[in-house]
């Protein structure tokens, strides 16, 4: 669909991901051996025909800008349209930090007004999934909805009390929305992504901010559903989905994606997921390497044992080293005789000779970026 644009909010800082997000937004979190979380939403938008995508930046956005660059890898480096970064800036009525999604949208009204598309997908970036936004748009038009919310019935995603849950009638209209309940009463989890006419979004953002409503879901949306002032529908996304709101959730997401049948639903040949290139040579499995049940990116040198793990670009596992049930990000170095199990090694971590790092998979340990153990 050509009449669709995207707006990706990366303001959610993922405090509960601890060290992993102390240096980056959740959107910039490395995942699945060679991607960052934002690649999935961005590539889905591109596969759905969007050619104009705004990225709302909040804190720690340098790694995100570095990753996305000119948008070339996503074919978003056009002259007419493409990727637009929307960092916070100071104005007489803005202190340079967005108070919430509606505030961010209001601050970037110029971008929205200048865009040509009739429909806009507004999405958060704390979840990993792929989506056919074109199908979502088709349903939106068919139902005559004002707002269409993306939801999932994936039971894995509900465990967390943080989130929004919706109740639908048979026609798919949203009757109720629950905000961070202790025990969610509805099985439909809102995926923090909605589709709306661009003009209506501009109108709503203007109105909301003038009433000091900065948060879309818990203020504007909940009220509109309750009062019936807007026609809000749900669109079910059947893609596997993960809410990346804790170290454990992040670890499980990587582990789930080790399973080919799940991975194939996310990495589909007909809807490729694009990412920044590093032009690494293929991975070398040196004689003596033992690799089982693992995902690896290019540029690695594997001399030791790797099992059930996700290995990012440029990782070196020396002879005699053992890596099990682990996530090792870019340029990690596991020296001979080291043993790494149940850990998440952030970028450029070195584990020296003979060091043992073991954690239960139910409670993975994170080693911060650039550390030497």
């Amino acid at each position, binding site marked *: 669909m050509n009449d669709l644009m995207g707006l990706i909010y990366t303001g959610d800082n993922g405090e509960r991901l601890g060290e992993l997000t102390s240096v980056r937004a959740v959107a910039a979190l490395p995942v699945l051996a060679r991607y960052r979380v934002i690649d999935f939403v961005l590539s889905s938008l591109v596969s759905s025909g969007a050619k104009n995508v705004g990225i709302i930046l909040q804190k720690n956005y340098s790694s995100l800008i570095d990753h996305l660059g000119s948008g070339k890898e996503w074919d978003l480096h056009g002259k007419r349209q493409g990727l637009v970064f929307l960092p916070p800036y100071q104005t007489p009525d803005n202190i340079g930090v967005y108070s919430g999604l509606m505030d961010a949208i209001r601050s970037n009204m110029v971008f929205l007004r200048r865009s040509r598309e009739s429909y806009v997908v507004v999405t958060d970036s704390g979840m990993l999934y792929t989506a056919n936004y074109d199908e979502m748009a088709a349903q939106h038009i068919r139902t005559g909805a004002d707002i269409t919310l993306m939801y999932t019935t994936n039971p894995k995603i509900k465990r967390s009390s943080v989130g929004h849950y919706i109740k639908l009638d048979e026609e798919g209209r949203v009757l109720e929305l629950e905000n961070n309940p202790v025990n969610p009463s509805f099985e439909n989890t809102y995926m923090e992504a909605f589709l709306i006419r661009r003009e209506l979004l501009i109108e709503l953002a203007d109105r909301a901010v003038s009433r000091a409503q900065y948060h879309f879901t818990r203020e504007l949306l909940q009220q509109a559903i309750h009062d019936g002032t807007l026609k809000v529908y749900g669109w079910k996304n059947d893609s596997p989905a993960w809410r990346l709101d804790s170290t454990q959730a992040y670890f499980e997401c990587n582990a789930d994606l080790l399973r080919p049948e799940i991975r194939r639903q996310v990495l589909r040949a007909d809807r490729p997921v694009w990412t920044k290139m590093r032009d690494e040579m*293929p991975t070398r499995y040196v004689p003596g*390497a033992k*690799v089982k049940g693992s995902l690896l990116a290019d540029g690695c040198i594997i001399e030791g044992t790797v099992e059930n793990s996700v290995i990012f670009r440029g990782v070196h596992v020396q002879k005699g080293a053992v890596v099990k049930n682990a996530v090792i990000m870019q340029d990690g170095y596991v020296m001979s005789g080291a043993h790494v199990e149940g850990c998440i090694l952030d970028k450029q971590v070195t584990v020296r000779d003979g060091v043992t790092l073991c954690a239960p998979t139910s409670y993975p340990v994170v080693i911060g970026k650039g550390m030497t153990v």
Partner: protein
Amino acid sequence: MIRKKQCVAMLLAGGQGSRLGVLTQHMAKPAVPFGGKYRIIDFPLSNCVNSGIDTVGVLTQYRPLELNAYIGSGAPWDLDVSQGGVYVLPPYHTGATGEWYKGTANAIYQNLPFIQQFDPEYVLILSGDHIYKMDYAAMLRHHIEHKADATIAVRQVPWEEASRFGIMNTDETGRIVEFEEKPKNPKSNNASMGVYVFTWSKLRDYLTRDEKDPNSSNDFGKNIIPAMLNDKCVLTAYSFNDYWKDVGTIDSLWEANMDLLTTPLPIDLHDKKWRIYARNFGSGPQYVADTAEVNDCLVTEGCEVYGRVQHSIISTGTIVEAGAQVIDSVIMPGAVIRRGAIVRRAIVAENAVIEPGAMVGAGEGSIAVVAQNVTVPAGDTVPAGTQREQ
């Protein structure tokens, strides 16, 4: 308005590469996959950009479709720039005349107007059939320092092989005094690599003169270099003795791939300062399953390995099913090796399928080849040294 360039590179990519047999049935030699994720042309193109040369003409003639599509806008090599960039240059009709490229020199001659747009001082002539990392800027400096009209890259080859090459005989200053094409009794072992730097104004004169000679075969080695030597032009040899491998035959292509499995790497492709760029097709990470056994291999993105792979190159998007065996082989992008199939000492070209229980190649003997898009039926055999075309 096109900005003046100091040096323009011209990459001769028109040859059929008939010695590669079925591998070049549907594509020009420079488009042939290499090393898991590359194509041969990635090496000269990456060398150009790493050497600071951002204007490259690629002369195509034989089955250019795959090569054109691969080069595209030049973005993978950062050659999608507004001043310069990569240009695919097929032969074209000019009305009265118009013809195929007759020889290497004629190919450049036909593109005089292309080169002239950039008003360069120097022209670098490259071929698309070698795997090497070379700093052309250093060669260009050598050319300028020696105030040469032409500089020819040479390397020392084993004496017993010297008679297969164009041999440059030099004096003690490195100036070329004699050129012998495939001499029976070589006087030196300095072989030409087919990499030349010319002072453009000189080359232009010689190309124009050569074109008027009906007896000329319009070839750099046979005509242009000898003519320049004859006229006492300054020709210098630039010595290059790093890794350089011709991949013009099935055996040498297989060997060059296998070279990437030696430690230390004879050609360091991990080198961050001299990356070899390639087009990317958005494949996922490589998956090595619980049932897999991967030893002494290169495996790249998009591959799924469930079977046994040993001392082999497994290229982008290849699937090796459980119970399949791949040994001492090069599996090109998108190929599928089904359960129980055995592939030994073979090159399996792009998107070929080896059905269950089929046998390709043998533990010894010459390299077996399965061509692009070919399916080898279940239980069938492709003997060592043979090529399966369909």
